[in-house]
């Protein structure tokens, strides 16, 4: 599954009471893969964008996750080559949350893609 073409965007955002500041070395170090790029999103900009897109297509954007007005987090989504983010955040091939519950399905989907 080590496809050099894979690109991973990891977005850290404050959700819990203990998220006082940008991710430290411990958090960032959990994703050591060179194919990843990590971001800190203190204002939940991406979460808001995903929520906006999900209002018109909840299942496509969020997968198994259902919005109840909160922040989109502990969330993983897979986008095949060719998908572009135009007017709205794009529909995922696979999306789900919490990560621990969907990780097996996600791995299966990723294996098919790579």
């Amino acid at each position, binding site marked *: 599954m080590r496809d050099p073409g894979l690109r*991973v965007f990891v977005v*850290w955002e*404050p959700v819990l009471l203990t998220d006082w500041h940008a991710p430290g070395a411990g958090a960032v*170090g959990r994703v050591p893969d060179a194919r990843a790029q990590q*971001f800190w999103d203190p204002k939940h900009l991406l979460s808001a964008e995903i929520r906006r897109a999900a209002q018109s297509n909840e299942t496509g954007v969020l997968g198994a996750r259902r919005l109840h007005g909160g922040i989109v987090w502990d969330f993983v989504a897979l*986008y095949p080559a060719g998908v572009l983010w135009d007017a709205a955040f794009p529909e995922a091939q696979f999306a789900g949350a919490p990560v621990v519950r969907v990780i097996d399905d996600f791995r299966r989907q990723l294996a098919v893609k790579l």
Partner: protein
Amino acid sequence: MASSLAAAISVTAALSCCLPLGPFLLAAGFAGASGFFLSLQPYLIAFAVLILAFGFVQAFRARKCGRRRRIFNAAVLLGSTGLVVSAILYSFAPAAAPAGQQSVAALDLASFRESFNAAAGRTRVVVLLSPT
């Protein structure tokens, strides 16, 4: 183990109202222990700062009472302060990205979108997580 020992000594010393040593050891113990309890780190550091402040108050009061300042106590106070400050700096300093990655950037939606679209020839994964 070290934190427990520090806690035990500190409580005994604080209760005895004789030595300001205990609170300093406790503060240092908590700051060090925070490395193992990442999710509790902010609270442990806050607690360490409080205990340290208590230690300073104790030291100040002891001085006002005419007790002689002991070099050992002063050294422990300064050492503990240094440890707590180091823990705070380590905790709040922006983390360097792992080798081979770009530095961790504050998310700007327009440039994130650009990066996402720039990699349109590849399979992409987007993950949203809480640091703790």
